[in-house]
């Protein structure tokens, strides 16, 4: 939703009308940002690199939920489970077939997409609230299957897996090389999601979200569109899961509890609906708050000795809920909307109109 365009830029050709970045300044800033993200890999320590890798994986997964819920309007309370399916597909491909991460990663995306489509298929008959129940059921069923299919998934013990094999002489066991790989993938997925939203399919998603009967009257096949939304969203979740599992070199059912599915949805609201930038903000904010809660642990250990474990666990639960509720009550359209307002007021600055 571009409220205001930069003053004095006009679209004279179709090519200009389609551009994501309109002015030289925007091009310069985005190039500088990407170069900076690549550059800081060599100055950050392992702790910061690890945090960034987690953030990038969750950005990709959050983009998937943004496509399902933000663009296509299908509420999903099972997104963490879809991400988990991605992790386990990668782990099983590596553990049982012996294939490398490079093959497993796209397979993880496709596997999670298929599972997501399967659990999204009730959307043929269900809407809104009822669909949310179906996805809630999906979460419990996926977790049950994964933790009990022991020959395949190793049950509650989880599976060990390995990082990507060296490519072109780059060793991904080194933290900053894996960071660069994940960053590249993340930028590619953001580009993909951004462009998907501007294609015929992306506009069909928005039409289905805003009024599905009107969309059907206009010739959109609602069921196919919803299924595709689930499939593509699940694909993103699976890729994000593969990135995350590759970093940890281990997967476990504990990696995707029901809480995470709920936080996915909650922080999506905080980030803002129907915008890629909102999804990125949401994932970054979530994981930064997560890290803050972890960093608070020593503080709590000092104040309340003995209780620190429970206090840390409950602190993040309470803090997240407060953040989400405050945003919903004060800024229901999310960070993205606020950011647009700031941009617009900067552009108009001395003139208040």
């Amino acid at each position, binding site marked *: 939703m571009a409220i205001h365009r930069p003053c004095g830029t006009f679209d004279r050709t179709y090519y200009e009308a389609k551009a994501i970045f309109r002015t030289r300044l925007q091009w310069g800033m985005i190039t500088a940002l990407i170069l900076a993200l690549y550059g800081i890999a060599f100055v950050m320590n392992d702790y910061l690199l690890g945090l960034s890798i987690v953030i990038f994986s969750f950005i990709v997964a959050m983009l998937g939920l943004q496509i399902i819920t933000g663009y296509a309007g299908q*509420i999903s309370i099972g997104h963490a489970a879809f991400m988990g399916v991605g992790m386990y597909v990668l782990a099983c491909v590596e553990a049982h077939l012996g294939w490398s991460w490079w093959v497993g990663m796209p397979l993880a995306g496709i596997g999670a997409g298929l599972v997501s489509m399967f659990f999204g298929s009730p959307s043929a008959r269900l809407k809104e609230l009822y669909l949310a129940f179906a996805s809630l059921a999906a979460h419990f069923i996926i977790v049950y299957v994964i933790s009990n299919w022991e020959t395949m998934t190793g049950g509650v013990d989880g599976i060990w897996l390995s990082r990507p094999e060296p490519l072109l002489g780059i060793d991904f066991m080194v933290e900053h090389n894996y960071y660069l790989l994940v960053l590249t993938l993340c930028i590619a997925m953001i580009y993909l999601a951004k462009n998907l939203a501007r294609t015929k399919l992306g506009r069909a998603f928005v039409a289905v979200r805003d009024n599905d009967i009107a969309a059907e009257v206009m010739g959109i096949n609602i069921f196919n569109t919803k299924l595709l939304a689930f499939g593509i969203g699940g694909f993103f979740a699976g890729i994000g899961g593969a990135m995350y599992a590759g970093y940890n070199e281990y997967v476990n059912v504990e990696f995707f509890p029901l809480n995470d599915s709920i936080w996915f949805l909650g922080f999506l*609201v905080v980030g803002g609906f129907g915008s890629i930038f909102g999804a990125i903000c949401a994932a970054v904010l979530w994981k930064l708050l997560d890290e803050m809660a972890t960093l608070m642990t020593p503080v709590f250990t000092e104040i309340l000795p003995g209780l620190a474990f*429970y206090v840390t666990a409950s602190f993040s639960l309470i803090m997240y809920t407060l953040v989400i509720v405050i945003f919903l009550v004060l800024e229901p359209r999310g960070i993205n909307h606020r950011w647009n307002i700031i941009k617009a007021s900067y552009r108009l600055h001395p003139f208040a109109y």
Partner: protein
Amino acid sequence: MEELLKLIVLGLCMGGIYALVAVGYVVVYKSTRVFNFAQAAMITVGAYALYQALIIWSLPIWAAVLFTLAVGVALGLLVERLLMRPLIGQPILAPIVVTLGLMLMVRGVVLMIFGGQVYGYGEHFLPLGAWHVGFLTLPMIQIYAFIISMVAIFALIQFYNRTRMGLGMRVTHEDHVVAQNLGINVKRVFQYSWVIACVLGVISGMLLGNIQGCCVELDVTGIMAIAAILFGGLESIGGAIVGGLTLGVLQMVTIGYLAPIMPGEPIMMVPFAFMLLILIFKPYGLFGLVRIERL
């Protein structure tokens, strides 16, 4: 055969509590059109409030129960006024996210205050022991729990059918604006619905806390009760009762016959598989209103 009968009776007892929880969801959904996922959290609140009053403060039973009910009433008023009223008119996702978040927040608060251990009431609340009827062994707490839930639901139905407020709540269910034009105080109706739902949740919390012990995972029972409402239909109190009893029996039969065959804990998964099946074949449940949509 005896085995099956035993399972069915135990299932009905458990189903009574499911029905009580399910009715709590229905009351709020009927009048406010908000699906209150936080109903599950009210169970935890009720169980721990009773534990606090009965065991830690060692109050007599009647005072402890009154305290717990008062906590339920206060919570209902607070949630309605602070969280739900600003969200009226927002898209459907907003209340879903807020109530889900509230559920996790209650989990957090309980963890912070009580830690993660499992507490029990011991012999301080409902009498322990069992009755022997023929070949059946009926644990007394389960039977009492069933009777108490049925009494609570019966009282609620009487309230709906006999009082002016109950009539107002039924009108509000039809259409908020029409109800307002007819002179019904819709805000007051919302307030009453939340208070009633929270009190029902707190009662089921006391009963469940007695049966399963107070722990943070009590709210999973509340989430499982969602399957019961879907079976009966989201708008129907009778449906919620039927659904709750069915779910209880189904679960007990699962424990008896499926659990030896299936790995892990099928008892957790069965309600959700059941829910998915209902959603596919009967999306509005047995007694739910089928929504007709127009452009």
